């Protein structure tokens, strides 16, 4: 991920140690100087997000990474980035919570990430990689989207992917970064300008909010990503993201071998969420099973998408427990037998 970020033109990394994502900072500390960039181990997550803000407002590609408790501390800054329309990439390698929790893989920060997370009416683009390769690929995407929409982008990974070792293909370094005619670099030969989020006039604040909302609608229209796996003839659709989807895929594969018509739908953008696509799937299939490593968060989005047009069953494991594909296959299989085989009889 760290190398992918450097290749995506990121030259500023600011972070604070927290497991399970220290490898990112360690890599950056070694390789950022080679790339002519800056690595700073900040005094806190709060300081690091504002260092990102300070670098970003000058037009640079900047990022930070952390894990759940640290991300909570960064939320104020993410709200400011969104309010001031500044690009930034934030990696959250989620761990078990609430509180200090543990350092196992968990998906408990779905709500925080997809609902904005900090204060105010805003959205963060949220990308959920399902493998190390995809984490690498989405890193480049994250920097592109952040610049394109001038909005913070969060990569929501979990401890499982954070601790996985897999061979990856790295992208070519980007050659041209976008021009940023809004950046603060000193008022040489032009009027001075500023970047702010304080707008005391309520009408102007409302206007600014609608402007942000129009941007968010545009993102919803253009940037939804998902993966469909064996859905054509599926009678039961499993919906899962990130590493849970990886385990679910293994389970689906196994069940297919046994002749069960199950498929997997994996949202890659958690915000914008593929509501429409899920609603369409309900035209063909009336049984959904949401599987998450939490107590049911994406579940709400799936239910919203379906709005009662199909049955939704939930299987979740909070706290860092990671079931095997065999465990998950058992759950999916028994649901399948209950709802589909029995009906068929």
């Amino acid at each position: 991920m760290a190398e992918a970020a450097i290749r995506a033109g990121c030259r500023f990394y600011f972070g604070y140690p927290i497991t399970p994502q220290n490898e990112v900072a360690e890599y950056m500390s070694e390789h950022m100087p080679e790339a002519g960039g800056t690595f700073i181990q900040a005094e806190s997550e709060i300081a690091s997000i504002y260092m990102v803000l300070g670098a970003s407002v000058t037009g640079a590609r900047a990022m930070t990474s952390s894990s759940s408790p640290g991300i909570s501390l960064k939320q104020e800054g993410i709200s400011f980035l969104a309010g001031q329309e500044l690009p930034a990439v934030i990696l959250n390698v989620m761990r078990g919570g609430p509180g200090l929790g543990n350092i196992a893989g968990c998906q408990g920060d779905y709500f925080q990430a997809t609902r904005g997370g900090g204060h105010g009416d805003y959205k963060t683009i949220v990308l959920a990689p399902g493998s190390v390769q995809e984490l690498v690929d989405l890193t480049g995407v994250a920097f592109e989207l952040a610049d394109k929409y001038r909005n913070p982008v969060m990569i929501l990974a979990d401890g499982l992917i954070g601790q996985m070792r897999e061979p990856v293909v790295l992208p070519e370094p980007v050659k041209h970064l976008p021009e940023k005619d809004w950046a603060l670099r000193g008022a040489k030969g032009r009027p001075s300008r500023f970047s702010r989020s304080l707008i005391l006039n309520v009408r102007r604040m409302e206007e600014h909010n609608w402007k942000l909302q129009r941007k968010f609608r545009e993102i919803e229209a253009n940037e939804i990503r998902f993966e469909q796996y064996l859905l054509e003839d599926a009678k039961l659709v499993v919906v899962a993201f990130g590493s849970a989807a990886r385990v679910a895929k293994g389970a689906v594969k196994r069940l297919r071998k046994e002749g069960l018509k199950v498929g997997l739908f994996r949202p890659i953008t958690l915000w914008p969420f593929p509501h429409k696509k899920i609603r369409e799937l309900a035209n063909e299939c009336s049984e959904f099973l949401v599987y998450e490593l939490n107590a049911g968060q994406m579940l709400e989005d799936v239910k919203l998408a379906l709005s009662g047009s199909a049955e939704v069953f939930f299987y979740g494991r909070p706290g860092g427990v990671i079931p095997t594909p065999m465990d998950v296959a058992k759950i999916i299989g028994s649901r399948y037998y209950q709802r589909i085989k029995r009906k068929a009889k």
Partner: protein
Amino acid sequence: MSQDKPKEPRLINPRPRTLIDRPSHFCPGCHHGLIHRLVAEAIDYFGIRERSIGVASVGCSVFLYDFMDTDVLEAPHGRAAAAATGMRRAQPDKVVYTYQGDGDLAAIGTSEIIHAANRGETITVVFVNNTNYGMTGGQMAPTTLLGQKTTTTPYGRDFKRDGYPIRMTELLATLEGVAFAARGAVNKPANLRRTRELIRRAFEVQLKGIGLGFVEVLSACPTDWGLKPLDAIKRVEEELIPYYPLGIFKDKKEADHL
């Protein structure tokens, strides 16, 4: 008797180029406006307006960009020094200055200023100490004097409950990364002139790459002190200066790596 025409009036001290010509929104007798002017003068003195980027803090000074004709980032409450760090690293050839109140720098932003100073970020920090939270209506700040009544110390600040007023300049002067640390006031012409020099020097140490330049300026807040402007000025002299002595606490002549 000669019949010379009367001389054209001459402005002895014209408005600095960097100070935008617009009516001040500060309360009558507030010192923020004077301090803005001194910062603008320092920027003009070095001819660095076009390559300066300011970082405003949250407090009465938040509208810094309305007065300073440089690029300005409005940083969140307390985070100016961290944002300035990101900026400094991303724009190494620019001049970065922050302008922060005492609630901003000495309470919520203590961690950020101490660590920016300790890293020796080559930035200039102007710290306006008016011994209370101006913008939010005059609550206690870490700098509030013992016995001082504020809206959250209605019986006066009591060290047993609230601790002691913090002397940020002395504290920061102990850090290796700080090149220059000084305290001034603008309550009378002599102090104002001295503070002008201090702010200039705080920019100079940045320009020379020596380290962080820090100037604390004691500032009147007549509105929240509940005093008339002239009485507020008197309070600076009689109450603030005895506890917060004016002067230079550190002045490094060259950078450590030189």
